[in-house]
């Protein structure tokens, strides 16, 4: 099981702040593919240019990230602070 957190416009577009998922996948690309396969809304909201970063257990890394079972995974749209 993993916990997935959604931020910014993703919360509205996907209708949730977070969810718990069965997880037997490998990395952030696999997770995004799984979520995109839920339907056109998901595919559009999580299209490649619309995901800024996937943050696993609050450790910020670049690019594709390994996701172990039990992880907390934040899916971040492009940031707009400051």
């Amino acid at each position: 099981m993993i916990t997935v957190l959604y931020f910014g416009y993703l919360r509205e577009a996907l209708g949730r702040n977070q969810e718990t998922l069965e997880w037997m996948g490998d990395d952030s690309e696999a997770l995004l593919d799984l979520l995109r396969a839920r339907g056109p809304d998901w595919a559009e909201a999580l299209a490649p240019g619309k995901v800024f970063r996937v943050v696993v257990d609050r450790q910020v890394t670049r690019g594709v990230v390994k996701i172990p079972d039990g992880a907390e995974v934040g899916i971040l749209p492009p940031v707009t602070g400051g």
Partner: protein
Amino acid sequence: MWLKVDVQAAPFDLACEESALLAQAGDAGAVVAFVGRVRAHDAAVPLSALWLEHFPGVTEAEIARIAALAADRWPVTACRVIHRVGALAPGEGIVLVLMASPHRAAAFEAAAYLMDYLKTEAPFWKREDLADGSHRWVEARQTDEAARARWES
């Protein structure tokens, strides 16, 4: 470098923060402050409020990382960053950056660098609540990416 980072709903006070910074800045000859404010007329429809959310824990760590990168490049003696979240009215301060250095060019550049990275790396998201009752999430701007990229050449 002395560094203090806060993400908070409460307003900030420039004078208080400057005094606190100076107490920690050693013999710094230059202090640069940046205050970013909510604009009322960024869009065609007037803004009623700006609403900001962030990724608690990750945000603070990212800002600290960016400040450390700035301190690697310039002789910064003290740095203070406050970024607000929640609902903000037009005119209110969103973000405060204070940078102290022995040299003015370093203070200016380190503050500009921190802002350019903060805007493109720190996990904040803005929603504009408009006067007509609608709202929209602010989209990331190419100009902010370009501003950051200039430090990488």
